[in-house]
């Protein structure tokens, strides 16, 4: 007879295991199980129906893992290394308790080790997969490189993280990959273009370390263990793709220290030069040694991939803008004051092609001193500087951030020492929709850009004002057809009114008939608005609801922004004229 079919034997109940069951199957304790899951990338899952998955017990929420994942973990060779480690601990403890110090020392020197290479390869089958996951990796490595050495964060880990992050920064500098910078209260946000993928990461401000109470440090150290291995391999491949030697060596110097193996035992003298080399590499100031010299930059062929001309044009313009951005600080020499954060600024300046240095007493690796005549910009953050040298700009660090984001060198006057700085806007904000509030500072910048463009083009046929209005609206509304027409409608209406008034004045007296001033532009605008209205009516009924809501939202946004503008004007008015009044009162 066929045995009766029992509940919770098939389906969702069989697909999930609780954590306890998983640990029993793998024969690991909780610490090792979590470590294994993190290394292999096995996550707990949420089932569709918790009652079924937990075999009828829905009163508590249990951590569930996919049964397939656990079966997959069974084949992992690292599991044996965990068990070996457990055995090793037992032996070590026994030797220590028996006061068998020789044995204990011998055991510790032969600690069981495991390698994570095959796990990295398995989780990222191709190089591009690794690049996609690079954000998390970089954030953690940069974070750990700023930690102090505690018992939860050992010295080796911190040093390894520091080395790897410096290598990655060297790659970004050499490849001119940095695109966006944002200085927030949390840290510096950098966005770079690595092998076609945008990678964003955060670098903390250089301040005291405070361990938050809720964070599980052991967990984070397991993540860092995995990510350091991954970052090392990624660095190797990135460096090789740029024809740089890995580990990085400085250009033009005869390397003695960092070659592996063939030292002839010259002892301390060599050790110190090697340390000096490392320090100079860590300073990020000098360019690296290349195995193959780069050729002249090849001009891009204009191969039409798609028929869409507009998008191709946009892509070409974008590529040109990026090209220009990489040469932003070319030929400029910077000097950093003592109070500015050195490493992020060095990184930013060098990735845009500039040269930078600092005072020799601050850190090793400075190439020229403050008294050097060729310095073009001096970056300082003080209230005032007593003796300024001629021929160089004294700017605050925000000039660099904003110039990189706007892809052009801004006017140093606004960022001079002692000036109130314009606000540091975020480059990550998505394209502004129609009617979104634009702070007046951005508007000013946009106007400046347009004014420059007009000077270059020098169109004499049309009014400059009209041109500016239209181009401004073009920029704000992203060239949308309806947007242009709305703007056009406004200017058309104004002209209509003017022509209307003129006509009234003329109609009072009977005069010799003058030729009616046919305002072709106004007529054109009228026609266009009529056509627009017709097209609006032609919108099919299905889409009418959506169209209506779109327009309504747009109107609402415009009103909101106008409201905000009014508020801003009011605030400006309240705040600025006070000093003048105060002066008058004194007199």
């Amino acid at each position: 007879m066929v045995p009766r079919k029992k509940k919770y034997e098939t389906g969702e109940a069989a697909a999930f295991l609780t954590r306890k069951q998983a640990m029993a199957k793998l024969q690991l304790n909780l610490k090792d199980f979590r470590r294994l899951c993190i290394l292999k990338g096995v996550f707990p899952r949420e089932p569709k129906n918790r009652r079924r998955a937990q075999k009828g017990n829905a009163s508590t929420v249990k951590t569930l893992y996919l049964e397939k994942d656990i079966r997959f973990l069974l084949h992992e060779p690292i599991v044996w290394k965990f068990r070996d480690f457990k055995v090793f601990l037992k032996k070590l403890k026994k030797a220590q308790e028996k006061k068998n110090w020789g044995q204990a020392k011998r055991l510790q020197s032969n600690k069981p080790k495991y390698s994570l290479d095959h796990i990295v390869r398995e989780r990222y089958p191709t190089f591009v997969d690794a690049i996609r996951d690079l954000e998390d990796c970089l954030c953690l490595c940069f974070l750990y490189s700023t930690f102090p050495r505690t018992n939860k964060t050992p010295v080796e880990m911190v040093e390894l993280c520091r080395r790897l992050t410096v290598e990655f920064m060297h790659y970004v500098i050499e490849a001119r990959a940095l695109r966006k910078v944002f200085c927030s209260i949390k840290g510096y946000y950098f966005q770079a273009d690595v092998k076609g993928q945008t990678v964003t990461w955060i670098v903390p401000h250089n301040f005291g370390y405070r361990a938050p109470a809720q964070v599980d440090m052991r967990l984070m150290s397991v993540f860092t263990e995995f990510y350091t291995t991954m970052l090392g391999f990624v660095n190797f491949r990135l460096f090789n793709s740029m024809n740089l030697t890995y580990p990085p060596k400085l250009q033009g110097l005869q390397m003695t220290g960092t070659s592996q193996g063939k030292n002839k035992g010259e002892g301390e003298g060599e050790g110190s030069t090697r340390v000096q080399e490392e320090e100079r590499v860590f300073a990020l100031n000098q360019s690296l040694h290349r195995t193959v010299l780069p050729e002249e930059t090849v001009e891009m062929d204009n191969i039409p991939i798609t028929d869409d001309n507009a998008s191709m044009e946009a892509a070409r313009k974008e590529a040109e803008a990026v090209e220009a951005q990489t040469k932003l600080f070319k030929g400029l020499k910077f000097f950093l004051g003592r109070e500015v954060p050195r490493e992020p600024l060095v990184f930013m300046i060098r990735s845009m092609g500039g040269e930078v240095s600092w005072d020799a007493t601050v850190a090793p690796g400075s190439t020229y001193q403050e008294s050097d005549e060729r310095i073009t910009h001096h970056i300082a953050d003080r209230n005032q500087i007593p003796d300024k040298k001629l021929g160089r700009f004294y700017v605050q660090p925000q000039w660099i951030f904003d110039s990189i984001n706007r892809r052009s060198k801004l006017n140093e006057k606004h960022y001079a020492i002692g000036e109130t700085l314009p606000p540091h806007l975020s480059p990550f904000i998505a394209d502004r929709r129609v009617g979104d509030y634009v702070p007046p500072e951005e508007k000013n910048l946009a106007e400046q850009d347009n004014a420059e463009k007009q000077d270059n083009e020098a169109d004499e046929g049309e009014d400059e004002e009209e041109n500016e209005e239209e181009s401004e609206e073009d920029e704000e509304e992203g060239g949308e057809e309806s947007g242009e027409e709305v703007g056009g409608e406004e200017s058309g209406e104004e002209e209509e009114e003017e022509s209307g008034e003129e006509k009234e004045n003329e109609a009072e007296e009977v005069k010799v008939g003058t030729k009616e001033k046919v305002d072709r532009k106004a007529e054109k605008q009228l026609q266009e608005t009529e056509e627009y209205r017709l097209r609006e009516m032609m919108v099919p009924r299905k889409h009418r609801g959506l169209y209506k809501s779109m327009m309504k939202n747009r109107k609402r946004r415009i009103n909101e922004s106008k409201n905000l503008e009014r508020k801003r004007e009011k605030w400006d008015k309240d705040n600025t004229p006070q000093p003048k009044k105060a002066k008058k009162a004194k007199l």
Partner: protein
Amino acid sequence: RVNPVVKKKQDILREQGVVSKKEKEAKLQRAAQIQQKKNTAAERKTRRRTKFDFDLWDAPEVSTVPASTDEETKVDPSWISDEAKVHTNVWTAKHVPKESKHRKLDTGSLIPAVEVPDAGASYNPALADHQDLLWKAALVEINKEKALKKIERQTTDMFPTKENAPTKESYIKEMSEGIAELGGVVDEDEEDEDEEGMESDEESEAKINKPKTRKQRRDTVKRAHADRKRKSILSRQQMERDIFKLKTYKKELNEIEAKTLARQKVKEAKAEEKRKNPLQLTKYKYEPQEIEIKLSDELTGNLRSLKPEGSLLEDRYKSLQRRNIVETRIKQKEAKGWKKKVEKRNYKMGWETNQLRKTKKGGGKKKKMKMAKVTRPLLSR
């Protein structure tokens, strides 16, 4: 132990300065080993990998066959089984287990690894952006207050306060409203409701079943037959007429399809929304971290006077929880671990406790305190 004769010979040779080949080789090898140890000292210090000297994604295949150039000693690799090859390659980068191809490597979360920061979080933000962020942070607090107030409203506010609490007089007054004898207020507009008459239950008469006659049986069969025939004719006629109803049927079907499609879309949208939020993986809910913001008076436009806000470590930890890579866990209280107090054998065994027991019966407080003073340093462990 060395034979004394051999030892003598060795001493003589050493005095003469003759070094054997074995000793020479031993010296060289020892020096080489010390050098090797020095070179790999940094690697051996830590169990992590510090040297990255090969391309992981282009790694060379580890051959299971020992390399040899001699024609005679070239090994034919066909005898090496697949299992042996896998066993050798399992630690190298080339080996990719079969099951890993079918693995779901991502958590299905739509949250990016590093989220775009708010514009108001800049160290020198624009006014509007900063106000937006302040408003967001304020909203969180407002919502918390709202939740508290809701609970208050539904529980304590349902009961009267001390001032409004009913006193005995007011209670009597309220209860005697409408009753003229007790002195309460009688409302003249009130009407007495008519009482409805009770309905009597109908008794159902029990039916008495009489046996059917032959005629009645024939009639019922005939009637059933005629009914069936009529119905079949009607249904066929209805089917023929139904062809003209095709349009309405089509319309109905389209409506049903449209409804299902709409429902499916709503379900999809819901599932998408769910992917943008952290899942419930353990019994503890995910708690979002506080929004990092500098208040208006804390804002200085200066990079030098900037004090960073928020911990990046916590930020990364919470981000991992949000993306369902790690489940939410609460730090459990550590078990104290009671240590068993074992009293070592000595001549005084149990004297202190006995003394205390004695004082319970006989002596007063003073004697007890005296005893306690004596025994305190002894008992404290």
